[in-house]
């Protein structure tokens, strides 16, 4: 005969069984997310619940901010206004000529038969907060799928490149800053025209890699985007070289740079429209499709994730 314990002793599965179940489930989620990036739908669904809570948590802080801004000194506002007016007047000459130069450049390029440069256009967005994850450098802005933001769009501020949109939610999107360890930007040194790739270091600095120890780089050199990746438009300032270590034991120089944009500060940013994929010449397309059957334009807008080492 079967002796069952009385029902008031029933406590569900044993704790160790439950623990192994949940640990296995979390491990499966971790692998799916880290290896295959296959859980974006689940993340978006969960964000529908967490986002309202998050905005609720931010409400008192925003209220405090607004309260402080209300009592800003009139004197300071007047000063700022005067300074901005002066700055605008100072820029006006360059700006007017730039517009003319751009038109002229376009005409000359047409004459030469070179492909036209794409005009930079985009939407301004407000930075909401920095993501709390201490292992990466990301910020969240207030534009999302509703504003037709897609993953891969470059983000700039008034001084240079800030980062790249890596994840889009319905109302917000996540930007990986150029100082993040997983973010890479193809750049060009303005003074010499040499091209390389700049990687984030995770501590607010950038690392210009794969330049030989005897490369012509100096402190203070300006790095601008080279545009070779098909994601960032060419010519945007990225960083300035601050420190160079040339060790003959290594074949590459260690070159440290500081970002020019106010990357780690709260401000307004501009989300640039994605670049249209550049079509390859006929011959290359047929060659590429013959080899692996992938269309060449597909990878241009995709999120770049450069594997290290």
């Amino acid at each position, binding site marked *: 005969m079967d002796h069952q314990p009385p029902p008031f002793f029933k406590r569900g599965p044993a704790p160790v069984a439950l*623990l192994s179940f949940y640990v296995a489930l979390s491990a499966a989620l971790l692998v799916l*997310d880290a290896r295959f990036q296959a859980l974006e739908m689940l993340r978006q669904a969960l964000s529908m619940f967490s986002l309202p809570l*998050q905005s609720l948590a*931010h409400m008192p802080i925003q209220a405090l901010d607004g309260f402080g801004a209300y009592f800003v000194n009139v004197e300071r506002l007047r000063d700022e206004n005067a300074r901005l007016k002066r700055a605008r007047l100072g820029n006006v000459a360059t700006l007017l000529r730039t517009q003319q130069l751009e038109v002229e450049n376009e005409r000359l390029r047409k004459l030469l038969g070179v492909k036209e440069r794409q005009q930079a256009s985009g939407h301004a967005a407000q930075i909401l*907060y920095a993501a709390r994850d201490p292992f990466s450098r990301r910020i969240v802005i207030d534009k999302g799928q509703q504003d037709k933001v897609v993953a891969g769009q470059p983000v700039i501020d008034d001084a240079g490149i800030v980062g790249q949109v890596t994840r889009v939610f319905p109302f917000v999107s996540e930007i990986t800053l150029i100082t993040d360890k997983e973010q890479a930007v193809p750049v060009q040194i303005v003074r010499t025209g040499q091209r390389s790739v700049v990687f984030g270091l995770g501590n607010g600095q950038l690392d210009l890699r794969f330049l030989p120890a005897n490369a012509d780089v100096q402190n203070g050199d300006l790095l601008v985007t080279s545009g070779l990746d098909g994601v960032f438009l060419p010519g945007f300032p990225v960083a300035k070289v601050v420190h160079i270590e040339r060790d003959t034991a290594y074949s590459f120089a260690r070159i440290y740079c500081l970002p020019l944009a106010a990357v780690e500060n709260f401000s307004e940013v501009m989300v640039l429209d994605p670049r249209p994929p550049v079509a390859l010449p006929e011959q290359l397309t047929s060659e590429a499709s013959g080899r692996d059957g992938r269309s060449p334009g597909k990878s241009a807008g995709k999120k770049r994730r450069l594997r290290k080492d």
Partner: protein
Amino acid sequence: MQTSYSSSRILLPVWPPFIGLTLLVALLLNLLPTAAWPAMPDWLVLTLVFWSVRETRRVGMGLAFLSGLAMDVADASLLGQHALAYVLAVYGGSALSRRILWFPLGQQALHVFPLLLLVQLVQLAVRTLAGADSPGIAYLLGPCLATLLWPLLTYLLLLPQHQPVDHDANRPL
């Protein structure tokens, strides 16, 4: 004579919505934009561990897993990172609960400290395996601060259960 600790006092039964309320408040505290202070304690895991020690049957690993997922989405970290750490901490809390409650508050906090440290170390291990950078020593300061807060938290969260059973009209409090 046996020494009497506050933990052996007979308390009123807990009001279950109060547990949910405290967990919600802890989640909101966690969602504050405190990225600039890496030493901020993880309020949610502190509250979860507290209730898993006090109310093992009500707050279990399922709730810890769900809260962990919520934190993963809100923090933009790997999905499952917080969930794994929270589940382990709550399991440790409920497994140790019979032992922990025998001790006075200071020693209870010392028992809780390894659990809170485990939460950070598990996350550190997961992210290091996935190729992230080390977040600095301040990351391990959070559990220390949370441990110091344990007596205060115990006092606050047990306040509703310390009320007298019979209300005296002449002494409302």
